[in-house]
């Protein structure tokens, strides 16, 4: 079996918090990403699902090298990302591109679409010939579904709709022909009618270009069309990981079950009982001793407060971190 494109092992990213200044050292840390391990295969889409604040965006930024991990390793196409610096890091980043949540903020308002899409080529000194560069920009725009590209090249972001802007962001990512696309809530700011288009576009890119995708979302409903596997994240940890169908039909972790129960089902006859979680997510600087989910868990037992359950393999490729899963 071929080695995965991305292999993340025991990754931990901590942030110092509280009154820290040049004069005082930080006392406490936010465990944004805490001991996370997973793989992404070539041409595979992994959905990373969790509530906001669970650490999914930090995980993406850590993969990109925009945040330094505290410990752990990231193997990307055989290279240890955490060890890279300067030009090596820059070269490696060429192969992983990110799409952000809000297309109204992720595009520089003063640049034309053509300039935005061409910028990565210029930065990475690819396609130095003008004609070559223009051809690649056009191709990227077409691949992102902005056809014909001539219409869009001279436009400014404010002249485009939200969906079109997100396509520009995708085009700017595609122009480098990356192997991994990190999509951080790429549709949550868009109109519902446009969401499907963008998700289908990502699915299509995965199919035709064999691009691996890490699809970050808080909404399980949006992942089915694109994701091969789902990782559910809670408070910096992956609590359940498995094939999309398995996780959706046979969720093993109470948190996954709760998430699924509030997701609108495509088929109204499959109406389920909603599980409403009690309480707030614990303060990430002061985590409970046992299972992190225990304070909110509807089925928690005394054992859960005492010991933190490890990720346990249940069936092929399906793991969950629950004493009673």
């Amino acid at each position, binding site marked *: 079996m071929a080695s995965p494109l991305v292999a993340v092992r025991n990754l931990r990213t901590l942030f110092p918090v509280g009154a820290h*200044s*040049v004069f005082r050292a930080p006392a406490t840390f936010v465990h944004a990403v805490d001991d996370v391990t997973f793989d992404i295969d070539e041409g595979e889409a992994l959905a990373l699902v969790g509530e906001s604040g669970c650490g999914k965006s930090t995980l993406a930024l850590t993969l*990109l090298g*925009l945040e330094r991990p505290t410990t752990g390793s990231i193997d990307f196409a055989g290279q240890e990302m955490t060890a890279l610096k300067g030009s090596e890091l*820059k070269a490696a*980043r*060429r192969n992983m*591109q*990110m799409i*952000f*949540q*809000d297309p109204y*903020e*992720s*595009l*520089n*308002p*003063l*640049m034309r679409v053509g300039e935005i899409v061409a*910028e*990565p080529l210029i*930065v*990475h000194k690819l396609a130095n010939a003008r004609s070559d560069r223009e051809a690649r920009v056009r191709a990227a725009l077409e691949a992102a579904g902005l056809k014909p590209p001539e219409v869009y090249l001279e436009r*400014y972001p*404010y002249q485009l709709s939200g969906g079109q802007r997100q396509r520009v*962001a995708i085009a*700017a990512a595609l122009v*480098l022909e990356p192997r991994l696309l990190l999509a951080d809530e790429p549709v949550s700011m868009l109109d519902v009618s446009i969401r499907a288009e963008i998700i289908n576009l990502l699915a299509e890119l995965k199919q035709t270009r064999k691009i691996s995708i890490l699809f970050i979302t808080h909404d399980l409903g949006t992942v089915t069309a694109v994701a091969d596997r789902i990782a559910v994240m809670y408070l910096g940890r992956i609590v359940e990981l498995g094939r999309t169908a398995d996780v959706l039909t046979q969720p093993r972790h109470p948190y996954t079950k709760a998430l699924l129960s509030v997701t609108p089902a495509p088929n109204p006859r499959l109406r389920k009982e909603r599980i409403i979680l009690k309480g707030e997510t614990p303060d990430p600087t002061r985590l409970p001793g046992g299972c992190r989910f225990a304070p909110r868990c509807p089925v928690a037992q005394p054992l859960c407060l005492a010991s933190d359950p490890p990720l346990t393999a249940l069936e092929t490729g399906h793991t969950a971190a629950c004493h009673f899963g």
Partner: protein
Amino acid sequence: MRNRRLINKVAWALFTICFVIVLNFFLFRILPGDPARAGIRDPRLTAEAQQAIRVRFGLDKPVINCFASINPPKPADCFVNPLDTQFFIYVGNLFRGEFGISYHSNQPVAQVLAERTWNTLLLIGVAQFLAIILGVALGVIAAWKLGTPVDYSALIFSLVAWSLPTFWLGIILLFWGSTNLGLPIGGMVTPGMNYASIWAQVIDVGRHMFLPTLTYTIVFLGEYMLIMRSSLIDVLSEDYVLTAKAKGLNSYQILKAHALRNAMLPMVTIIALNLGFTVAGAVQIETVFSWPGLGGAIYEAVGQRDYPMLQGAFLLLAVSVIVANLVADLLYTYLDPRVQLE
């Protein structure tokens, strides 16, 4: 679209200037007291001599139809030729570039203002240029090194510079510069010099300019730095900056391609407004350093109740503020494509 907006803006600016012209005229007529007596403050003047002065300055004519004067209101014939009233003579003179004659110096106001404005522009132009360059540079460095000792030092320097009273800073620098650097204390040139070459003259003016320019630069540096810093901090937290980082741009490239231009947008407004107002705002510095500029001229004219001078100077100031705003507006259209739609 762009042209219509341009025409619209220019038309509004012209309308505002017309309004200011009218307001400026009546403002000085509403002030209490007889302008003729205010100008020549000698109680021994005979009634004939006072009347002769009124005739000389055109004050014998009615202010406008139906009003001989406004404060106190005195009625007059409503059926005089409007063109023979003070108001229309004033408007007509303006169109010929005449601002009247100074009560104090007996020279045409336009001539005095032109010379003084040039001196002020020289001082302020250089100082503003330096303040903008240094302020922006310091602001960028501080924002880039956010939270470091470099940032804190720049921040404290700017806050102090901004809050220093101009007059006090000027006096301190004047004492320091004249004692330690041997720089001249007042004026624009050394009186009675015969310059060997144009360069000698430039150097002499430069030596006189040094301290006022330094004062002015420090005073404005702080403001520019603080605004640039906070503007850049805002921009640096934008997603497109993060996107650029993710695309592999290094710090310098991000600053150059994305952050600076966006962060400069609020600066353009501040700079334009400052440029409009600073013509008047240089009063204190011009007073401290005896610089023969417009601010000093206004200050003197207030003391001397030189109404024609004040009227001309106010008009000039109002027009420069309006023009500066117009320029800021138009520059904004050029810098920020989003503005065109509004």
